[in-house]
């Protein structure tokens, strides 16, 4: 059976220092500016450093370790060629402020990627500046503000979103200064049109929607939704976290969305890096183009340049022009896949999800809330397991770790009890999907105590997260406080 590497790896400052002598400063820096406190960063040998981090890496799971079906996260394979090229010095050792004549290659990549994203989403203009999806949302909402300010419509201070929305949606809306109105979903798991009509008004700035939604259900009433939102004078915002479901099949721009953000680190295969760097480009329809962040990338004859001359622009949202290496990798990925490959990506991502969903639901061990057809992800419930055997969704998740498999997203969206949100992506083979399904079925039939005590085969066992909150130990200066955590 699987077992993760277990290194009792000390902290860096617990390793034995090899370079003992202190550095004697001979600096001409005025004494008044000089540091008087010690700098407790250990002085180690390169061998110690490399072993330390290599051992840590062996206690970590990535998409190259195995399936990673986190719902709404699109953990797909990250082609090696993209990594390789992004490290070439002509791309990596480029200064953001060097003369534009010396960065034509990268400017062309940015220009072309914007055009490709326009085609994929059906939007008219794109910016690559936002650093991640949440920053893309925030940018979209700042554009929304700028749009209404420009129209001298100062009344619109509300953003509506469904109760299945990602947590970043309401958080971004609040940061942009909007009141958040959350509407409950229908029994079908989709937007409640009657409810939407009730809350839409001349105070609505935007309705934020993910389509397919976080249950994996396509909002089939989208044309009517767009009509209602526009009739109220509001904008329709597309959270692109689930774009992997519909590439080459339908486009948010055609559905009536006015603003779109994408997550290059999801749909366009750039690695998540254990939490970033990401990239959250934002696309808009023509009428909103003037508000996009500066600089925009322009093509003049055969040359590319940055253009800052947009007086209505919201200005800047992130330093320089975005996370360039991520932008570069996404560009390479789109070239590799082509229009046909992206379409097939979505087809197989949806096929894989529906295949897993059917096998799991047919088993009757897990329940599927709402109607049948799903897109690239689906949410099943462990409610029955909880009532019959006391096994929760989190227990199933931890037990999966014992089999060397990464669990799905758990307890999201909040409207499904004991939720497991599964997104296999197009990267997994049928054999891998079958193994995952079999393991989930096996876990449901295992001795509950084994499941509730899981994981057993990981570097550490189940973690006391409450202890971590009650007794915060956040740096190596106060690890003696660990004695105060009693298991």
């Amino acid at each position, binding site marked *: 059976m699987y077992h993760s590497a277990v290194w009792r*790896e000390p*902290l860096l400052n617990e390793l034995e220092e090899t370079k003992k002598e202190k*550095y004697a400063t001979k600096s001409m*820096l005025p004494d008044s500016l*000089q*540091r008087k406190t010690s*700098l407790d960063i250990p002085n180690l040998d390169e061998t110690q*450093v*490399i072993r330390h981090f*290599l051992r840590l890496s062996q206690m*970590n799971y990535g998409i190259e370790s195995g399936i990673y079906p986190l719902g709404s996260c699109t953990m797909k394979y990250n082609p090696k*060629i993209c990594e390789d090229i992004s490290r070439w010095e002509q*791309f990596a050792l*480029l*200064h953001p402020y*060097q003369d534009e004549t*010396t*960065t034509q*290659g*990268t400017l062309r990549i940015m220009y072309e990627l914007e055009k490709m994203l326009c085609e*994929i989403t059906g939007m008219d203009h794109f910016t690559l500046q936002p*650093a*991640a999806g949440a*920053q893309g949302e*925030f940018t979209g909402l700042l554009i929304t*503000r700028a749009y209404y300010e420009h129209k001298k419509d100062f009344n619109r201070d509300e953003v509506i979103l469904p109760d299945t929305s990602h947590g970043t949606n*309401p958080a971004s809306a*609040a*940061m942009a*200064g909007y009141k958040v109105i959350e509407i409950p979903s229908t029994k079908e798991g989709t937007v409640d049109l009657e409810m939407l009509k009730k809350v839409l008004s001349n105070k609505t700035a935007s309705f934020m929607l993910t389509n397919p939604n976080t249950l994996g259900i396509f909002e089939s009433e989208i044309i009517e939704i767009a009509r209602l939102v526009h009739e109220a004078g509001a904008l329709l915002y597309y959270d692109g976290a689930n774009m992997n479901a519909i590439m*080459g099949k*339908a*486009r948010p721009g055609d559905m009536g969305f006015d603003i779109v953000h994408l997550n290059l680190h999801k749909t366009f295969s750039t*690695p*998540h890096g*254990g*939490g*970033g*760097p*990401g990239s959250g480009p934002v696309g808009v329809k023509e009428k909103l183009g003037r508000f996009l962040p500066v600089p925009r990338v322009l093509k003049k004859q055969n040359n590319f340049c940055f253009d800052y001359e947009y007086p209505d622009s919201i200005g800047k949202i*992130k*330093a320089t*022009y975005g996370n*360039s290496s*991520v932008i570069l990798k996404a560009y*390479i990925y*789109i070239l590799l*896949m082509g229009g046909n490959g992206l379409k097939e990506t979505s087809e197989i991502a949806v*096929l894989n999800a529906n295949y897993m969903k059917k096998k799991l639901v047919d088993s009757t061990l897990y329940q599927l809330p709402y109607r049948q057809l799903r897109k690239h992800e689906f949410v099943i419930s462990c409610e029955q397991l909880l009532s019959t055997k006391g096994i929760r969704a989190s227990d199933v998740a931890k037990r999966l770790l014992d089999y060397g498999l*990464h669990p799905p997203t758990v307890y999201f969206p909040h409207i499904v009890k004991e939720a497991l949100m599964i997104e296999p992506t197009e990267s*997994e083979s049928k054999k891998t999907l079958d193994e995952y399904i079999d393991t989930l079925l096996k876990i449901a039939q295992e001795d509950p105590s084994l499941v509730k005590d899981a994981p057993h085969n*990981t*570097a*550490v*066992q189940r*973690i006391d997260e409450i202890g971590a909150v009650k007794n915060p130990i*956040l*740096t190596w200066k106060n690890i003696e406080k*660990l004695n105060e955590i009693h*298991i």
Partner: protein
Amino acid sequence: MQFIPNSPLKKSMLHELKLHDINDLFSDIPKEIKIENLKLPPSRHQQDVEDHMRQLARQNKSFCEMPSFLGGGYKPHYIPAVVKSIISRSEFYTAYTPYQPETSQGFLQAIFEYQSMIAELTGMDVSNASLYDGATAIGEAALMSMRITKKKTFVIPENISWEKKSILTNYTKGAGIKIKEVAYDKETGKIDLEDLKKTINAETAGFYLENPNFFGVFEDAVEEIHPLLQKNQSLFIVGVDPISLGICKSPGEYGADIVIGEGKSLGNPLDFGGSTLGIFACKNEFLRQIPGRIIGMTKDHQGKRAFCMTMQTREQHIRREKATSNICTNEGLCMLATATYLSWLGGKGLQELCETNFERGQQLRKQISAIPGFSRVFSGVHFNEFVIRCPDAAAVHTHLLRQGMQGGLLLEKWYPKLTNCMLFGVTELHNDESMTRLVSLLKEVC
């Protein structure tokens, strides 16, 4: 199709689902909005794409081909091979945010170590697990000062980069924070203390000071600033170049409440301004107001030391619109590069590096300002960036470019009063030879 293993199994899998056509899986999309194809070129072989990228790469001039002396907050630093090796471990770079701690102990421990080293460097009690960049960190710090002090005026120096000003405005607009600027002393390039005293009052939520500032000049009157803020119950936020903290006083030593900075210089490549790392550290008393992720040490059920994400009730996935920030994905891998870099360098190595950068800055400034027609603009002690007034900055820029060199940053575009001024930057990567060449090329212009 490459990267899609089930491509050839489409039919048999559809059969198991009792479907005939792949389009049956998309029957819930209304006909009016369905499309047949994307108007993009067809898929290409990896080798072909690599050739294409090589052609594009040729249209860029990297630092190796074209030495650059640009300042403005971004400068190249030496990155040891160890860093590349560690961040290329796919257990790290292909992992998601560590939501499942038992299978993410490696990354979690590395973040804990990063937090510890940032706290050491800045003189703060706690650090988060990174923000997007040093510029957005100012925005987050302003919002945090408002939450803590319940006041809505935020004060900044006039001479922070225009990019940062714009980002700060965007980050604080929604909360209704008013931004006030304090002038800089035209002689020294430092903050104008008299103007600061006039600007700070009981309404001030926080004051952001950059040290060294955008002109490269050290703010050495910091001891006078802290009491002024304390008196008005305003927070003191300091922005740093982390490399300067090898030898320079940590902001914790002069009363900072929050320390932020661009951490890219610690082990991350220039990357055309990408691969940024927002450093964010603060005093313990503000812990529950921090934006972004924090990793804590705890125990597993057997009492073994373990790590996990903590204080999550501040965050968007739990708190939604009441979260301290909307940030979710941060700059994980850049942070890992920094943790690796700092442990490779060690405290001693960082002190040495800081000293080299300081000395190189002095050396180049002296050489350039000795050329007739070129003069130092600010008298304050500077780190590895400095402002020079040229006879004709545009002509200098063009001449250097023709000779295969990138000079300093042209400041006049963003700071009209700084006519013909260039912001030069230099690091341990600029050797005597490249500096001598720069100086001789500058001499040719006048």
